């Protein structure tokens, strides 16, 4: 039984290969980009606008509001990264309703890549916000003894992020496959529906967790600064 679309390889030349994960990722990229281009080419800044523009604005503002609610003061900075995570994961889950579509997020390689990106983005946004020194100092909070634990915590949560998404996405497809072999026709459809829901939930969770991590990295400095201020006074 196949667990990951990575196993479907269309073309391979040594280390390089084109598997289903990449192909379906490109499909999603193409659809998202084309849709965006199509809709935003006729954007209206007036009071009347097309329903598609309305949908897009709704999605974008909703993501923005979510990021703000997590605690990031300037959502515009984080919107492209976090918003794209959400859109990509949600689109992967949504497209599962298309027959023959394998969600790229059902591949551990994809979720690992996403998790690694979040893993890289957290310190990057942290450093960008508060500077290298200040950011690195947060790893030695509250004391230098905590440095290894902090590093382990950082890595483990990235791993958890990747595995959580992979497990959920993969399980959705897996359950559908299993049910299809046991009870054909009706249940798989219901399970696909359920998979759609869990996919959306996972997209939300992944994005929110990434936002929380970034928020923690950018906010840590604030805490330390507050502490410094308290000490000085």
């Amino acid at each position, binding site marked *: 039984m196949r*667990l*990951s679309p*990575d196993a479907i390889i269309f073309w391979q030349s040594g*280390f*390089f*290969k084109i*598997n289903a*994960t*990449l192909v379906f*990722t*490109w499909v*999603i*990229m193409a659809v*998202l*980009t084309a849709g*965006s*281009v199509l809709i*935003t080419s006729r*954007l*209206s*800044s*007036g*009071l009347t*606008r097309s329903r598609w*523009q309305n949908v*897009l*604005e709704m999605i*974008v*503002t909703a993501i923005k509001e979510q990021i703000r609610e997590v605690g990031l003061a300037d959502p*515009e900075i984080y*919107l*492209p*990264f976090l*918003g*794209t*995570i959400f*859109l*990509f994961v949600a689109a992967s889950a949504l497209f599962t309703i298309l027959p023959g579509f394998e969600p*790229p997020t059902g*591949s*551990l*390689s*994809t979720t*690992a*890549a*996403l998790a*690694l*990106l979040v893993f890289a983005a957290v310190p990057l946004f942290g450093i960008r916000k508060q500077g290298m020194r200040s950011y690195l100092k947060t790893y030695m909070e509250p004391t230098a003894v905590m440095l290894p634990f902090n590093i382990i915590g950082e890595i483990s949560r990235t791993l958890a992020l990747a595995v959580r998404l992979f497990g959920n996405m993969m399980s959705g497809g897996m359950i559908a496959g299993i049910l299809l072999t046991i009870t054909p026709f009706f249940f798989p459809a219901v399970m696909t529906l359920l998979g759609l829901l869990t996919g959306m939930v996972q997209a939300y969770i992944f994005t929110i967790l990434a936002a929380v991590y970034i928020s923690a990295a950018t906010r840590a400095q604030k805490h330390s600064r507050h502490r410094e201020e308290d000490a000085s006074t």
Partner: protein
Amino acid sequence: MPIDWFTVAAQAINFLLLVWLMKRFLYKPVLRAIDAREKRIEEQLGDAKALKMEALKEKEEFQRKSGIFDRERTELMNAAAEKAKSEKIHLLEEARSSAEILRAKWREDLERDASRLEEDFQRRVREEVFSIVRKTLSDLAGEELESKIIDLFLRRLGKMDEEERKGLAPKTMAPDASVRLRTAFSLTEEQRNTIGQEVKKLFSLKKEPEFTVEKNLVAGMELSVSGQKISWTIDDYLLSLRESVEDLIKPGKKASPSPADGGKEDASLKGPSRSAKNPPKKRQTSDPPGEEEKDNL
């Protein structure tokens, strides 16, 4: 569960590419549109607020003006009412005065009509009285009365002294002037001779007087000599009476139009009857030779 590291790397690149694409084609334009709209809405709200403020200001201004207008209107209304009142009083006054004038005129007309009527009445009464008197006297008159009158005439002439006779005679009378004697009835030969002699003696005349009968004289005689006339006739009496009556009525008419003065009218009517006893000595006639005199014998 193997992890394909090539796929991981490729997916990472793919994702970063997707982030760039999304940023380029989705987030930026959408956020820009939203910002533009918000800005626009804000501007419109600002404009609306400004307009509202302006409207409020204008409303206040309008209310202020409306208040002023109301006040002015009330003042104007009051002034108009006051003016109308005074105009009404003025018009009433005018109407009253014109009514007074009309009434006075009407009263004057009425009085004039009444006095004209009265005058007319008096005139007719007078004429009637005179015609009756004339008729009565004419009826009474006769040769007998005539002869009595002539006797009286002659007796009076005889009683006159020289001075009086000269006074009666015209100053510039020629001795051959013709003398005319008019009587109401024809005289007897004897009467004619007596009168002729008396007259000739009176005026120192040579010519015999000429006798004519004139019925209009009623009774009595009239003597004309050199353009002068001496008469004693009923007709003359009546004429004198009429003249004196009219002389008495004329001033009385102006002075006493009211009924309270009616007594004066009566007095004036009575006047001629008294004065008839003493008719005037001379009167103007229309005869061409000039001034004529009439003696009251």
